[in-house]
């Protein structure tokens, strides 16, 4: 039973096609990795599913369907829904962790408030319960001393802490689908492992599916079940993670994989060394 089915999605900005006929599906509990060129339409695809792409921009979804399987077994095409319906979907069914945390957190509210508010909207719980839940989330995403941090404002946190606050907001509502757009770019590898483990745990416990957009091929290799590869507004290849890494069909995918810098590549070299450009090996 497919959870989300995107068919022929096409999005334009003033005549420029940012996403061109994208089709893919996400199964319950599955992690779909989305990789590819910077500017190829990954975030626009995610924002289109959330129906946030047209807000305050000249974007137009010109074609396609985004079908979400509801709990009662019915199917809803999100592209045909009005804003109130979408708002309830965003709170309860699909959560999104945005690429740039500083711009999506409210600068004038303490971070603890912002997590608690998400909990309140979702669970209808009172102030005390939701603040306790926010504190718990701080511990889970490894932000120390919740009591002394919970009243801080976004600008008082490090880049990676802000990112973890966003993740806490995304996770606290127990969504059926989590869309995570570059969620770990500001995290060191030890905390990144913790966050990915936390999401995995949630997936096992509640069957949450994840669409994970990232440039980090190590992260994809570690957590994705299937992978979608985008280049120049199009999906150029998709398949199981092992197939994408070990028998990629498209030249673009091969170039991308060959450009991944590997730890240990400098043994025996002194001084910095230029990178292989994709295509060098092609």
């Amino acid at each position, binding site marked *: 039973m497919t959870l989300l089915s995107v068919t022929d999605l096409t999005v334009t900005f003033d005549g420029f096609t940012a996403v061109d006929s994208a089709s893919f599906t996400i199964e319950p509990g599955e992690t779909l990795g989305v*990789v*590819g*060129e*910077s*500017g190829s339409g*990954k*975030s*626009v695809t995610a924002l289109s599913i959330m129906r946030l792409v047209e807000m305050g*921009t000249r974007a137009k979804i010109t074609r396609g369907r985004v079908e979400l399987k509801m709990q009662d077994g019915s199917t809803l095409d999100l592209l045909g829904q009005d804003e109130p319906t979408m708002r309830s979907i965003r709170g309860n069914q699909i959560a999104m962790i945005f690429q*740039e945390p*500083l711009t999506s957190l409210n600068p004038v509210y303490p971070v603890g408030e912002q997590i608690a508010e998400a909990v309140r909207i979702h669970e209808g719980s009172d102030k005390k319960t939701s603040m306790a839940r926010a504190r718990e989330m701080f*511990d889970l995403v*490894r*932000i*120390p*001393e919740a*009591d*002394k*941090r*919970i009243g*801080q404002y976004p600008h*008082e946190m*490090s*880049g*990676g*802490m802000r*990112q*973890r606050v966003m993740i806490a907001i995304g996770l606290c509502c127990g969504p059926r689908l989590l869309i995570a757009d*570059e969620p770990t*770019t*500001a*995290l*060191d*590898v*030890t905390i*990144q*492992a*913790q966050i990915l*483990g936390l999401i995995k*745990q949630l997936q096992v416990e509640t069957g949450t599916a994840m669409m994970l957009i990232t*440039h*980090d*091929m*190590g992260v994809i*290799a*570690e957590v994705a079940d299937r992978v979608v590869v985008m280049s120049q507004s199009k999906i150029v290849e998709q398949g199981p993670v092992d197939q994408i*890494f070990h028998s990629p069909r498209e030249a673009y995918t091969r170039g*991308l994989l060959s*450009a*991944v*810098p*590997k*730890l240990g*590549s*400098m043994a025996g070299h002194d001084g*910095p060394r*230029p*990178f292989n*450009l*994709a295509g060098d090996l092609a």
Partner: protein
Amino acid sequence: MTSQSNGQSPVVEVQGVSKQFPADHNARVHAVTDVSLHIDHGETLAVVGESGCGKSTLANLIIRLHDADQGRILLKGVDITDLKPREMRAHRQTLQIIFQDPFASLDPRVRVGASVAEPLRVHKVATKEEATDRVRHLFELVGLERSMLNNYPHQFSGGQRQRVCIARALALKPELVIADEAVSALDVSVQAQVMNLMLELQQEMGLSYLFISHDLAVVERIAHRVAVMYLGQIIELGSREQVFRDPRHSYTKRLLGAVPIADPRQRTERPLLTGEIPSPVWPAGEGPELVTYTEVEPGHQVADE
């Protein structure tokens, strides 16, 4: 830790710098504690470490966005510790920064082409035509289409915006660039292109970099020396070879051991961490113990555990 390899002052020298911020309940965040380091002409010093360990604060101290509580900062031998922000402007041609958050560092109402050209105009280093030419050229070098020069910041993807900031920092041909997670939103191909550009500029013009990054494979590739920070202090500092081939501090080892491998056939199970989370927050009047170092090899300093 001063070095004067070629008789010149280091491009930047940080001497025993500390910075605290207030937190709730009368507590203080000890963001940076007694950090000393220097960067030579043409050198890349990478700073790595746990999220929240003080890397961006260190960068902000060097550009004088924050006042240091303690310590001195020297730019090409000149003490800039007490300069007013206005007086710092004179040093913008020496020192440029690429902030961790690209969106927040671009003016939403200014077309990006103008944003990149602005420093050139302010510093009168180029005529209007020269500035336009140079900006176009830089856009090309970081892989952005010329037509995008007229766009506003919100019309870009995350990685495109990051490249605008890189172009802006390089436009003035500075001597030191502080790059705070500057390539984290780029796919590996574009990242390779941008990093190669940065390496070329270093070769040609002796540019120095303070390169803050969580991507250890990139750091290994481009750093001359590496500083590892933990809870506001440097816990290991050495040449790239020393730190990557022979890490001594337990945190450095843990960090290098946690790098995911880009091969789904080599997945590793990592148990979730629970219990006490190390913290730089201290009650007023208290603070962390200062680390002491042992020089295990020439140039390789390791905090005693």
